[in-house]
């Protein structure tokens, strides 16, 4: 008898496991505390008056950490005040966000509102996750967000999938005390000045463990995309190696910048161990006064206020150009995307109502002024006060910040340009050969992607980077 019941228990356990593994259509619309379910439950009309009938529940997934508390606070406020009987549940997923979104869409449990970014928007659009917003946008909104609507950033085949809120300017971040100690009056404006300043700072401070320059070379492409990029863009050269005038990749413009980085390493002006330095350890060292300068995004003021509070006297300045001549503008990075509506949502109208609240002038202005991110909406940036956060002054938009045309996305075989150039910085070789090899492989990958219909090689022979200047200050 005991054996029989043991056998029955085992079979029952297997059956339970089977039922857990298989989909349960009947339960697909049940709300779940463990897994937020966009299809959650209610069948209430979307415009039910407040306090009447069941609420329209929306699920909103984001990955942003820096504004987590603020967003929760604003969502709570919306839940209490909206007249449409809508209740939004916001979930901040700081890890595995993309995988979670993929799984949610595959299992038809997608959130109603998502947060795409510069890396995920293209895949999300191609996977069909995002709903075009064109049908909801008013003329007023089109005018308001128009300057930051850009192909391959938030617009694909003429359809807009997400709208901007904030973006990142790129600057040289420097320790004013170390500059003063080395007898340098101003931040460098050319590559030669940067190399020289790094050397002087190191000579003056090496005994105290202070070095002139550092970059997060643990991820070389990430390091170049926050440093070489704006130096090149200010010099009128694309920061990702794509020459829109010819529709081809050409990395030859990188040569003086990479040589300058190599020179600083050979001089011993870089913090020892930059090869394994990630951005946060770099910031921690900067906060301790060990690094003279580095190049990065406008996230830094928030970092030094909250993550690595510092006593050092630091500032941000426009990055140097190659030779001091400004022929373009530094990229205003990651500025095209913020919120989007899921194509699987059954409550798209309600989701749009929530988005109109999140994209309201009042909220966007408040977001900017509280220092969570520099507004990427020119009309908001024009009316908002300077964010109340130390160090932000140097990061504010100027006429030398602009949206650059985005390069086509390609899958290159072999080393990417970040790794290839970093290898040269570490061990030398022929930079001309490296550039020729990169051009060959990137253009082969581009031709392949274009042939497969995966991307478009946009050509604009008349493109003039100098004309980008001042475009983000439109009022």
């Amino acid at each position, binding site marked *: 008898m005991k*054996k*029989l019941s*043991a*056998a*029955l*228990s*085992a*079979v029952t*356990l*297997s059956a339970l*496991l*089977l039922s857990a*593994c298989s989909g349960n259509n009947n339960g697909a619309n049940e709300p779940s505390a463990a897994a937020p379910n966009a299809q959650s439950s209610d069948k209430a009309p979307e415009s039910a008056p407040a306090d009447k009938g069941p609420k329209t529940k929306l699920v909103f997934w984001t990955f942003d950490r820096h504004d987590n508390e603020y967003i929760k606070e604003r969502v709570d406020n919306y839940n209490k005040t909206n007249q449409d009987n809508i209740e939004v549940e916001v979930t901040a997923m700081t890890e595995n966000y993309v*995988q979670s979104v*993929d799984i949610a869409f595959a299992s038809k449990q997608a959130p109603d509102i998502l947060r795409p*970014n510069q*890396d995920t928007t293209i*895949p999300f659009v*191609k*996977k069909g996750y995002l709903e075009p917003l064109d049908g909801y946008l008013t003329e007023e909104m089109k005018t308001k967000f128009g300057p930051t609507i850009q192909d391959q950033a938030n617009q694909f085949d003429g359809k807009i999938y997400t709208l901007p809120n904030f973006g990142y300017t790129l600057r040289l971040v420097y320790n004013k005390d170390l500059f003063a100690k080395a007898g340098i009056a101003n931040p460098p404006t050319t590559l030669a000045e940067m190399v020289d300043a790094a050397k002087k700072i190191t000579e003056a401070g090496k005994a105290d*463990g202070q070095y002139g320059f550092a970059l997060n*070379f*643990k*991820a*070389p*492409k*990430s390091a170049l*995309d926050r440093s070489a990029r704006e130096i090149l863009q200010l010099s009128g050269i694309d920061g990702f190696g794509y020459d829109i005038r010819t529709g081809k990749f050409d990395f030859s413009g990188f040569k003086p910048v990479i040589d300058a980085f190599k020179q600083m390493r050979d001089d011993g002006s870089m*913090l*020892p*161990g930059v*090869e*394994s*330095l990630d951005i946060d*350890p770099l910031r921690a*060292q900067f906060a301790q006064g*060990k690094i003279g300068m580095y190049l990065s995004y406008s996230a830094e003021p928030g970092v030094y206020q909250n993550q690595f509070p510092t006593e050092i006297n630091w500032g941000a300045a426009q990055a140097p150009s190659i030779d001091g001549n400004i022929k373009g503008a530094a990229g205003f990075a990651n500025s095209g995307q913020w919120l989007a509506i899921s194509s699987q949502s059954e409550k798209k109208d309600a989701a749009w109502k929530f988005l109109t609240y999140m994209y309201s002038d009042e909220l966007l202005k408040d977001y900017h002024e509280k220092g969570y991110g520099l507004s990427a909406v020119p009309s908001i940036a024009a009316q908002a006060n300077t964010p109340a956060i130390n160090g932000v002054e140097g990061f504010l938009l100027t006429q030398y910040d602009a949206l650059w045309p985005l390069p086509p*996305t390609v*899958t290159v*075989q*072999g*080393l*990417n340009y*970040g*790794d290839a150039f*970093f*290898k040269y910085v*570490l*061990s030398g070789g022929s930079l001309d050969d490296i550039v020729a090899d990169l051009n060959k492989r990137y253009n082969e990958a581009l031709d392949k992607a274009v042939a*497969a219909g*995966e991307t478009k090689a946009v050509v604009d022979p008349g493109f003039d980077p100098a004309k980008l200047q001042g475009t983000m200050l439109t009022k």
Partner: protein
Amino acid sequence: MRMKWRVHVENYGFLLPSFLLTAVLGIYPIFWAMRYMFYDYKGYGDMIYIGFDNFTRLWGDELFWEAVRNTIVYAGGKIAITIPLSLIIAVILDRGLKGRNFLRALYFMPTVISTAVIAVVFFIIFNSYNGLLNQFLLKNRLISGAIDWLGPDYAMLTVIILAVWGAIGNYMLLFLAGLQSIPGDLYESAEIDGASAIQKFWKITVPMLGPVMQMIIMLAITVSLKGYESIMVLTEGGPVGKTEVMYLYVYKLLFPVSTGSAMIQEIGYGSAVGFATAIIVGVITGFYFMLSRRLNKIY
């Protein structure tokens, strides 16, 4: 007859849950990945059938072959240090030492600590600008300048040290289990014959551990060839691919490590590389198993 049927139901009933778990989480993903080997697929859009193109690309993929070379150095280094060291520690701790249980627990502790945590701690110890190791060596004037332990020259050595530190306790425990199965009379008779401690180790301990050692080394080979987690956290395969190992390369192709990662998701090619990697691990393990059959027949 009915009794026999019941026994069958009972046996298979108990087997079913684990079989289902293995099928869903172990076997299905293998076939899932194999399906994509012949396609160009980036996780979205159309899957384009490309025959053996992924394997042709693999053949000429310098990054992959560098990862294979790195894996052999990493696994070889880890095994060459871990196995003798854990055997020696196991032999010492098998004796009636005072506090041996405490020491066993101490050596075993790294095994139960999260790999990611270990890697972060090792970064604190080994980074060149303010790492504890450099500070110690400089303070005691053992070196004149900071050593770049995570730089191109020493990064592989550092990840091997990390791997050894994390593995010794585990293998020590397996050797201890093997040592305790050796009959005590063998040592007693050897002592009567006047054998020294070293003679007893080489003539009794090592041969008697043969079958256990065969399995331990096989386990060490497969685990080392497949290891990548600590490297992912400590160096992410860098600098410039110096610590890129096979499974880390596969992982990056299938799941690009971080936002803004240099690699783009390539499910088709990643599956082909994963398959080739599994074959390499299988061939090396099988080759070792063939060569090591003598260990099993030693007594």
